[in-house]
């Protein structure tokens, strides 16, 4: 909660203004019935008057009327200003929360990112923030106003009509207890309903996404029945909750009606017995207004209570993100320069979380000289990707050390390290925007010539040049308008633009044909000989000619060697090799 309130910042002012104007409005609004009572009484005084007395009475009508009109205008201004400032405060508050969440996520390490699914972050940034915005708006408008109104109204009513205000002794407790009971029963019911409702919508989404499966297995009827059961279930719960809440309305009416009868009876008695001296007709209708205002305020209070509890979940989910501490941070006196592209794994062990039983990597001891070409192969889940992600310090080792350029990666300034270690991720992403915008992620200042150069090296220039708009071709969200192989080559070019000391390709040419794949590697050898190249691949041909091949198996480095030595020493390597090359040889 505190964490979220910190996001208020520049919107504290409109918040305070809202509170101020809301208070003023409440003050004026509670004056209005009293003044109105005077007005009504002045009119009542007209009966049977003539001449001067009549015009004096008219003057008094005009005077109170004018006072009332001024009050109405003031109340309008206060209410209007408060409406404006509260909207600004709430919308601004929401903006700041979104800004902070988004900023926080940018500071996340990979470990933090793994913890939150991207869709859950999207919900937190949109729906949850919208809930908080609404709750906050209600809070600053009503949470102060409603209790104030109740107090002011009681005071005013008591001053104005004395014993007539005894009516509140009945209606306030009845309403408060009634609302509380309704809340106690309805709130948990609603919470249950919303949870089920979310589940129902998830299952609809599942159905929409999996429609080919549904139709493929001719399961339409089954899906209908499944849905109907779930939907009917929700209907029952929802109806119950709504029916409980629907009691609000008659309860409210009961109070208003009681008040009416009470005021009418006791009021008439008071007026007649006192011959209009104690109170008068005007006070009667004022009492009705006061009672109504009190009831409305109590009602709003109960609504606020509901909104608050409902948004508590959103607040919690937002706080979770804001409270997350990035698991990686820059060292005290960081090293800004990466000297060369050598990489040393010294007895490295790694697991993704402290509680994980199994190490994803263990006992890795690898020494890669600067400028070498290194191939890594191994089955899915053997730890290839995990191993290379330790180099640009995307994760921190659990045990042992990873050194780049002879210095522990933990001693580098993180951005400097990552600028020197370019990595093409397996799950690579091209963003919406033009090709050159995407490529400039690698280097914002890159000249057109440098971009073209990188694309030549990544063998992306061939297809880019066939596009009518060339480098200005728009990429759609998710990169749907380029093929898998083209996307991979763009990602390689983007990484090359960093001019890195170390280039890591994590299965980044799987959709590229073998010939182009070979040409890309040849280009690397000729044009960036000093860059250390680490290539993870499924295809044996992609790693065959590397200076060093690492065979991973089950989190362990099974073998290290060259093609020739591994053919002799590594059974895994041999098996994969034979499986993949046998037929071409016979062909």
């Amino acid at each position: 909660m505190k964490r979220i309130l910190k996001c208020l910042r520049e919107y504290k002012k409109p918040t305070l203004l809202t509170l101020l104007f809301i208070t003023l409005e409440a003050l004026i609004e509670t004056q209005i019935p009293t003044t109105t009572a005077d007005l009504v009484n002045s009119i009542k005084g007209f009966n049977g008057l003539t001449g001067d007395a009549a015009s004096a009475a008219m003057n008094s009508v005009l005077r109170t009327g004018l006072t009332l009109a001024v009050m109405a205008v003031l109340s309008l201004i206060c209410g209007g200003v408060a409406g404006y400032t509260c909207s600004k405060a709430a919308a601004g508050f929401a903006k700041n929360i979104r800004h902070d969440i988004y900023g926080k996520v940018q500071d996340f390490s990979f470990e933090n990112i793994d913890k939150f699914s991207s869709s859950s972050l999207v919900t937190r940034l949109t729906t949850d923030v919208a809930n908080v915005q609404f709750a906050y708006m209600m809070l600053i408008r009503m949470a102060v106003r409603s209790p104030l109104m109740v107090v002011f109204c009681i005071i005013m009513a008591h001053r104005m009509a004395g014993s007539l205000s005894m009516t509140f002794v009945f209606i306030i407790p009845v309403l408060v207890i009634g609302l509380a009971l309704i809340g106690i029963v309805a709130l948990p019911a609603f919470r249950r309903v919303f949870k089920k409702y979310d589940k129902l919508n998830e299952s609809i989404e599942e159905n929409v996404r999996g429609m080919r499966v549904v139709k493929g297995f001719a399961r339409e009827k089954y899906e209908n029945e499944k849905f109907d059961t779930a939907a009917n279930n929700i209907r029952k719960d929802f109806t119950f909750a709504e029916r409980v809440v629907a009691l609000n309305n008659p309860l409210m009416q009961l109070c208003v009606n009681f008040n009416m009868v009470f005021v009418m009876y006791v009021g008439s008695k008071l007026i007649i017995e006192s011959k209009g001296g104690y109170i008068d007709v005007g006070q009667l209708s004022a009492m009705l207004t006061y009672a109504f205002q009190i009831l409305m305020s109590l009602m709003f209070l109960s609504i606020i209570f509901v909104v608050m509890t409902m948004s508590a979940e959103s607040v919690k989910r937002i706080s979770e993100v804001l409270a997350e501490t990035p698991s990686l941070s820059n060292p005290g006196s960081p090293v800004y320069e990466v000297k060369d592209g050598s990489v040393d794994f010294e007895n490295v062990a790694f697991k993704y979380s402290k509680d994980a039983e199994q190490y994803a990597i263990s006992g890795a001891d690898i020494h890669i000289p600067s400028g070498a070409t290194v191939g890594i192969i191994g089955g899915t889940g053997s730890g290839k990707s995990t191993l290379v992600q330790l180099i640009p310090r995307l994760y921190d080792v659990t045990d042992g050390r990873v050194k780049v350029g002879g210095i522990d990666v933990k001693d580098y300034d993180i951005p400097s390290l990552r600028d020197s270690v370019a990595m093409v991720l397996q799950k690579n992403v091209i963003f919406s925007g033009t090709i050159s915008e995407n490529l400039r992620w690698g280097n914002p200042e890159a000249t057109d010539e440098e971009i073209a150069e990188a694309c030549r090296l990544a063998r992306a220039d061939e297809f880019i040049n066939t596009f009518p708009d060339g480098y200005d071709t728009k990429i759609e969200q998710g990169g749907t308008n380029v093929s898998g192989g083209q996307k991979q080559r763009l990602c390689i070019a983007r990484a090359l633009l960093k001019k890195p000391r170390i280039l890591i390709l994590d299965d980044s040419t799987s959709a590229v044909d073998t010939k182009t794949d070979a040409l890309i590697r040849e280009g690397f050898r000729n044009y960036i000989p000093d860059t250390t190249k680490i290539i993870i691949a499924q295809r044996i041909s992609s790693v065959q000619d590397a200076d060093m091949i690492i065979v991973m198996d089950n989190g362990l480095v099974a073998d290290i060697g060259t093609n020739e030595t591994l053919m002799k020493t590594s059974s895994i390597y041999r098996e994969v090799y034979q499986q993949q090359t046998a037929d071409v040889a016979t062909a």
Partner: protein
Amino acid sequence: MKNSNPSGKPGMNFKVLGRVLRSLVHHYPVLFPVALFCMAFSAVAAAVPAIFIQNIVAVIEEWFRTGDWAGAKPIIVRKLTLLVCMYAMSITSNTLYNQLMAYITQGFLYKMRGEMFEKMQSFPIRYFDRNKHGDIMSRYTNDIDTLRQMVSQSIPSLVQAGIIVIAVLFIMIYYSLWLTGIVLLGVVFMVAVSGRIGGGSAKYFVRQQKSLGVTEGFVQEMMSGQKVIKVFNHENQSKEDFDKVNTALFRDAFKANAYANTLAPIIMNIGNILYVLIAMAGGLFLLSGVKNISVSGLAFQVSIIVPFLNMTKQFTGNVNQVSQQINAIVMGMAGAQRIFELIDEPAETDEGYVTLVNARIADDGTITETDERTGRWAWRHPHNDGTLTYTELKGDVRMFNVDFAYIEGKDVLHDISVYAEPGQKVAFVGATGAGKTTITNLINRFYDIADGKIRYDGININKIKKADLRRSLGIVLQDTNLFTGTVMDNIRYGRLDATDDECIEAAKLAGAHDFITRLPGGYNCALSNNGANLSQGQRQLIAIARAAVADPPVMILDEATSSIDTRTEAIVQRGMDKLMENRTVFVIAHRLSTVRNSDVIMVMDHGRIIERGNHEQLIAEKGTYYNLYTGAFELE
């Protein structure tokens, strides 16, 4: 992809409102009118006290000079008793309609949801390919929510406010035409103001919705690319970009709410000013002795002006209430329209009459239909002359000169002929967009062919009931979709009456058994969110097991093993081969090692089959396949 339809624009669409009301009546022919009646009754009962006030004030005026309470008391008590009775009835009807509306609203939403879902199950695949899933989903979430708001709150509040306004209007005219005129003038002004402000609010609410969509899209893209952002140290740039989107959203949200929040105090205080005007006018009329014009024929007197003032309050209060509903109604109607659009979408047509039945096949080849599961099937084929023939289901699929286009004029397949005999494995290779998946879409009739013919065991597939046709084809797609439930449930999806043992057997065949037993809970491991806790390869294995348990005579594997590493694939392959003995299989694969042992391999390019033959033949041909295989060509 169609964008969210333009008809979602705000505005008063009474056709839609009428349809909502009609379906309410349709679903609740008794309850809904009863609820409406109770609403009307409680509204009238709420308006009537004005008359009581007038009566009582008149009594007070009569007696207060004498101060004789004892004389006035019986009259007042009598009147109040009547009022209490009215109230009792009013509260009863109020309770009744509120309870009824809660029941009706939820029932109505349940029926709408059910209708939407059921209709949706009948839509052709084309619908799902053309509409964004998010857009379809928002009809179930946002639009249903706006409908709920409209039915449960806006409609009752409109009905009530409308009736109160009319009732009060009549009472006002009963008392005084002059004063009524002033009230009406004021109300016209209020309506104009709320139309203007409310309209602005509705406009910005729509804009806010749009900005929210933009923000969501941006965030979605960035959050799923977050790791790339980190690798490229792009965090600050990304923050700056977000701030732009965020500020735009702030502006629209601020304006939308500012309009909405200022509306109430403005309307309320115009009401107060109107009140003052009435009081002054009343005073002036009293003084100047203007002749009152009214239905009642009563002259101007205090006992008219006092209740009149109360009625003014009531009147303006209700106008205020209606103005508060403008947003809800505009949004509710847009939502209802989008819901109706979905319901009105044409369903998939099915003229098929040949059905699939369990069969017992005697040694002499005669086929008899049975209810038991025999492991053999037959096509039950009724003829025009009333006779029935049975054809054994073998899995013989033939396509003759098939042409097809998703969009008219843009042919995707040209002159495709494929003969798959029972037990054969037929593979399709070729670049993305070559038309491989399209062929399978035609076999199971997700789409219908434009020209040519497709025969299944010699029967024109158009004659086969779609559900039965699809039941006879097991399909495993590249994008696997698993459902919320246990692993076992997901496998059983292939055949609902499969026993646990049969499911496990299928998992073993698919090579999925090993990893499933290692999951927490094994086969009872709960999956959610499309099996988010599994790897893509594991999901594919479960999808294969799901198809295996269905035990279909024909299997279509569309990139079904693309995410499984080559070593695991070899295991799966062995299981599949065993499973597929005597079955027809269509395979689409990127990885040529997957298709190598096929009986026929079709090489496709731009919607045509350019080479066909088995692996050895095609390699010997040294054509496209050879080049692909040796890696000279790139498959996209």
